[in-house]
């Protein structure tokens, strides 16, 4: 416990330092800019920088340093914002069901996030130092425009810390009756503060992509809300909010897998198996709508700037998008494999084994379409054989209508895997089982046909605006089929009998590696997509407003970028394993014989 307190004090002091520095920086730089431009009470244009305006530290590559630090900060921030969301949900479930296992699990989750919280603050402080050190003029310009939100951001950090510590340390104190409600309310408050922090930080980064509240020369109008509420703010907010939940679920899933694999007793294994299942369930629930949120964000980027849109998916970064597609597919495959392996916990699951191969065929088939590149890598012989770089049959699979159709199918069949998993240990007793199953089959069949129709007809035979718009009814079809089927299932299995006792812990170790794969794929994916989102500005600090004239103002090669992201991923995973290990250490006690005076 002492170790934990020490870490927390360190976290608080770092946050304090960050906050104070931020306040000072905002004021000082604001005053400096106003005086430098000679505008009293007004704002100057964005500075036109020279390479010599960027301080260099011998032997340090400033861009790679800030790239890695920002990425590490974001990963930890995503984790510590996500965990309280589902800790709140799980605590509420525990209160409703009065099943203490949920309360214990929620407490264990928040315990893991406490160490991660300190690391988030440390990385945030480091990021700020790097910004001030390596990109002082950019930071100065941004802090003039966002001085208010930066000030409140620092204050909110204090609020976040205070609420988190009361929530964590008061867990066992605030138990039962009204006290438990107070505790749950604190959880809600913690989430509200955390989400507000994320929204503010999102405003700064989206301003760099789609600046608002400034004129073409970068002169700020003084309307801070316009700068915050820029074109890409809400698309990023939605995408990040959902992605954080999925990410948090995957990291806690990896924690449970770590504990499962190192557990010695059957009871401990059963507990962590159950925890891993719940974490994976949350991750999958958030993963299902994530491709739609991502598509919405990409469509909005394209709508804002054709240049950024094409750079993103058709141009320079097209091949990184293929890697992204592969990683997203890997997430779906890992999540499905974990569910299939988990069916071994039930003796009644064998009834459904025969369907797994068909689900796998659809998943893999859709996955192949999902990552088929638009820009093919062809050898000269293939180029000659095809008569050009265009492939008559693979080419149409390289554009979005095919991808949207594929990902909807992947989502539908992942939901089907989940339904089989839920049914595995149950035997329905209602008289309308056959009719219920028939309705579900009809729902899936109609849904799949509709998804195909929308994808093929609107995707290839109508105006682009309908092609983009067709993704919405596709998503709605998928959601309707899933929700309706789950509702039918819940009525059909309401008074069901158990096929046998559920054996928590009876899963093969490889299922736990699927949980690890989920967490690593998520992390790598976020790093890669974060780089792409930031990189599509290319030689601009702030798109079309403030040019990046630093010596590093070039777009790195794909291989170089992938290596930096991979290095950052390894660093983050090493730190996460350290966090897991700490949680293990904090629970162990050594009794040193003869050391202390009796």
């Amino acid at each position: 416990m002492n170790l934990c307190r020490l870490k927390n004090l360190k976290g608080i002091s770092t946050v304090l330092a960050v906050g104070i520095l931020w306040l000072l920086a905002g004021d000082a730089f604001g005053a400096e800019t106003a005086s430098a431009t000679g505008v009293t009470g007004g704002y100057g244009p964005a500075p036109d920088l020279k390479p010599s305006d960027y301080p260099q530290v011998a032997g340090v590559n400033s861009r790679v340093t800030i790239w890695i630090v920002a990425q590490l900060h974001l990963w930890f921030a995503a984790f510590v914002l996500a965990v309280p969301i589902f800790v709140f949900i799980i605590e509420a479930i525990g209160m409703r069901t009065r099943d203490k296992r949920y309360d214990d699990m929620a407490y264990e989750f928040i315990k893991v996030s406490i160490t991660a919280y300190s690391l988030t603050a440390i990385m945030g402080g480091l990021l700020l130092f790097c910004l001030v050190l390596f990109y002082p003029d950019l930071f100065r310009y941004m802090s003039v425009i966002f001085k208010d939100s930066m000030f409140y951001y620092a204050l909110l950090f204090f609020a976040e810390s205070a609420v988190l510590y009361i929530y964590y340390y008061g867990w066992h104190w605030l138990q039962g009756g009204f006290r438990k409600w107070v505790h749950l309310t604190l959880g809600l408050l913690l989430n509200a503060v955390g989400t507000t922090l994320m929204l503010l930080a999102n405003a700064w980064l989206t301003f760099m992509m789609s600046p608002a509240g400034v004129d073409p020369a970068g002169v700020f109008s003084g309307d801070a809300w316009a700068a915050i509420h820029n074109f890409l703010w809400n698309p990023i907010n939605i995408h990040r909010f959902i992605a954080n939940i999925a990410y948090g679920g995957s990291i806690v899933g990896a924690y449970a897998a770590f504990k499962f694999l190192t557990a010695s007793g059957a009871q401990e294994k059963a507990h962590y198996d159950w925890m891993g299942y719940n974490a994976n369930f949350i991750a999958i629930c958030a993963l299902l709508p994530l491709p739609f949120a991502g598509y919405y964000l990409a469509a909005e980027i394209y709508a804002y700037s054709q240049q950024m849109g094409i750079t993103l998916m058709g141009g320079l970064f097209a091949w990184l998008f293929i890697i992204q597609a592969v990683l997203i597919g890997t997430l779906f495959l890992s999540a499905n494999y974990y569910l299939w392996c988990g069916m071994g916990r039930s003796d009644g699951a064998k009834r459904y084994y025969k369907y797994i191969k068909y689900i796998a065929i659809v998943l893999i088939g859709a996955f192949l379409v999902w990552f088929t590149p638009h820009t093919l890598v062809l050898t000269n012989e293939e180029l000659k054989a095809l008569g050009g770089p265009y492939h008559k049959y693979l080419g149409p699979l390289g554009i979005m209508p095919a991808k949207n159709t594929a990902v909807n199918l992947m989502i539908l069949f992942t939901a089907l895997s989940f339904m089989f998993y839920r049914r595995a240990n149950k035997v329905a007793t209602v008289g309308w089982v056959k009719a219920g199953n028939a309705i579900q089959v009809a729902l899936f069949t109609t849904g799949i046909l509709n998804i195909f129709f929308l994808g093929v007809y609107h995707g290839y035979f109508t105006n682009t605006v309908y092609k983009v718009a067709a993704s919405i009814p596709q998503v709605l079809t998928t959601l309707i089929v899933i929700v309706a089927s789950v509702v039918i299932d819940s009525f059909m299995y309401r008074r069901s009998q158990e096929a046998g006792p559920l054996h928590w812990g009876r899963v093969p170790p490889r299922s736990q590696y699927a949980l690890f794969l989920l967490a690593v794929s998520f992390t790598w994916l976020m790093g890669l997509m974060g780089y792409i989102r930031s990189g599509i500005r290319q030689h601009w600090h702030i798109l079309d407003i403030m040019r990046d004239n630093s010596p590093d103002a070039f777009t790195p090669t794909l291989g170089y970028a992938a290596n930096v992201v991979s290095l950052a991923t390894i660093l983050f995973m090493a730190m996460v394993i350290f966090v897991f290990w700490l949680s293990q250490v904090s629970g162990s006690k050594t009794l040193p014989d003869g050391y202390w005076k009796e």
Partner: protein
Amino acid sequence: MKIPKLLQAVLVLIGVYLGFILVFDVLLDAVIPSSVLAMYMFFVAAGVFMVFTFEEDGTRELVAPIKALVEEPSRRLIRNIVFVVVPVLAGAGTYFQMVPSLDAPVELRSIHPAPPTAIKVYGKRVNLLKLENPYRKFEKEDPEKFKELVAGGAKVYIQNCQYCHGDKLDGKGPYAAGLNPTPLNFQDVGTIAQLQESYLFWRIATGGPGLPKEAAPWISSMPVWQNFLSEEEIWQVILFLYDYTGRRPRSWEHDG
């Protein structure tokens, strides 16, 4: 006779591989690129692994022959053979992958370079984000005039563009075979149907030399058409490209 699981898995993989070759190379007469096939097969193998190992009995059956090969003393001879043959095959595979060849290296070339925000054409600066085809409005307002403009564009196309891009706009003009990269196929759903008209204006007006430095080399032999055609002619030819192919330019507005 029941086929052992390991053999089943291998047969599935071989079957899928041959299936891809049969469908693309033989039936469709459109060779499947080796890079795509390699990616496809990797994830097909992952899928096969998932299906064969998600339950314990199946996994045990799958790995039993491998386990027996490694552990059973009676299989010593075959084990030694396998332990020699597998690394040799892996080494040979690596060697043939890495050995330098006389072929030109494979180029990773983006189909759509990203346009700049603004360009300088016909002696003026044009903002590509806001640029629109001045004749597109006649499609609804004055269909007769629109028809004339499209016909004008067709004339420009036949006189200037079809030599490379082909009289069917499929990128197979008489000169196409001599060019690498080959001229764009406008019939392909992945080309002009994905783009705004301002993008086409940029590509036609500034040609190969106007391509951005990013993701170079583009090595495009497209002429700088602003030196040969008027601004009006370029907009007309753009109308023709969409009209002939039946595609619609990318836009954010719904048709009426």
